């Protein structure tokens, strides 16, 4: 579904963040990316939908080369949902408007359809009563659940999560992870950058370890946590577990 070949990213011609990533995400997989901060995990994730433009390399999505400047990136982006660490809800719009804005603007649905779809999704995360509220009236956990709903409203083929629980108070992490788990069970293809090792263990089909701009290990969670091979991964796991 997503194929990455020899991906490099350099910031300001100096800081070499990604040093040649090759990876393929298949339909239905749940890839969890872990690694120390500054390892390039977030940049890798952001490159997948061209929020960062790669310095070198190719990214293919559903058989289309998205790193080609002639590709309509806006159209591609509608198929890839993204959830950010800082939620990034639109504070001047109600929850319902936050969710329906893009599907209507991108002409995927008309207003009534988008509204129905939004209410269905809100029901799924238990927040129907917040439809008319503004983001400032919600807790962090609620905001992130809405951000997930907003991305899902586009009916994406894959969902990308960039440290979705890192900005939350500890007691709100659970509610967001629960929504992500349910999403994983529904068969959604997911790429998740996170520090939640428990989540990785439980949900991932594959766990990737990144450090210094490279993927140093990839394995199913039992092997990844039970029998790590890379030295730096062993060190990393010793620190975080």
């Amino acid at each position, binding site marked *: 579904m997503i194929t990455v070949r020899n991906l490099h990213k350099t910031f300001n011609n100096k800081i070499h963040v990604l040093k040649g990533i090759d990876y393929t995400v298949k339909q239905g997989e749940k890839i969890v990316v872990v690694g120390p901060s500054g390892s390039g995990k977030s940049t890798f994730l952001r490159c997948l939908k061209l929020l960062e433009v790669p310095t070198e390399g190719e990214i293919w999505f559903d058989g289309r080369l998205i790193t080609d400047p002639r590709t309509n990136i806006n159209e591609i982006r509608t198929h890839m949902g993204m959830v950010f660490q800082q939620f*990034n809800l639109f*504070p001047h719009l109600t929850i319902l408007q936050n969710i329906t804005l*893009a599907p209507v603007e991108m002409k995927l649905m008309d207003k009534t359809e988008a509204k129905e779809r939004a209410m269905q999704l809100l029901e799924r995360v238990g927040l129907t009563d917040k439809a008319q509220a*503004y983001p400032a009236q919600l807790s962090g956990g609620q905001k992130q659940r809405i951000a997930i709903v*907003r991305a899902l409203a586009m009916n994406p083929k894959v969902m990308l999560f960039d440290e979705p629980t890192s900005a939350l108070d500890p007691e709100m992490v659970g509610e967001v992870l629960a929504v992500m788990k349910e999403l994983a069970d529904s068969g959604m293809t997911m790429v998740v950058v996170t520090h939640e090792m428990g989540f990785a263990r439980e949900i991932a089909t594959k766990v990737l370890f990144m450090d210094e701009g490279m993927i140093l290990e990839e394995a199913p969670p039992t092997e990844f946590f039970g029998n790590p091979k890379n030295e730096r991964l062993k060190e990393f796991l010793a620190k975080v577990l």
Partner: protein
Amino acid sequence: MNFSVLWDKIYYNFIYEDRYMMLVKGLGNTLLITLGSILLGIIIGLFLALFKISAENNKKFKILGILSNIYITVIRGTPVILQLMIIYYAIFVSAKDPIPVAIVAFGVNSGAYIAEIFRAGIQSIDKGQMEAARSLGLNFRTSMQLVVLPQAFKNILPALGNEFITLLKETSVATVIAVPELLRGAVNIRNITYEPYITYIAAALIYLVIVVLFTKLQGLLERRLSQSDHR
């Protein structure tokens, strides 16, 4: 001076021969020029700000960014009275009606100031907002229109109100090219009655009242727009 003397003066300066109409007509033109030029200024300012911001993010817009900077530097670096006279006597030489000329001159002038207000407003919005909008597939323009600018507008409303008030009073400068605005109305009455105190104070009071009314209006608008801030 007792009240009957004051009343006589008021009667002679403003009521006799309907002289107050000169102030009323002047006020009308002052408001027309202010509204026209603030609208023109907002359009010019918005484009200049977008050019400058685009130039920072994309090399393709470098020239537009440089041109915007030159515009802002020249306009902010010269007195508005000179700009007005240059536009009136050198550019619109054959203009019969000085009011449109004044609108253009003050619009061009305030555009430079409003550009900086807009730029600060747009840059005050967290980058994540643009990113989230783009990530949902919206293009740069739609993201600006529906996500960034509405939030930026709310943040810059006090500064924009300030610019409006400044502009309202600054339009009195247009009296030098004989625009029949509020100050010119007062001057015209004085030229008939030879009473500078009462005529100028009347004009000053009218400016003051308009500014106070406008400030109230702005407060109402700000309260309305802050609806989404309530927790």
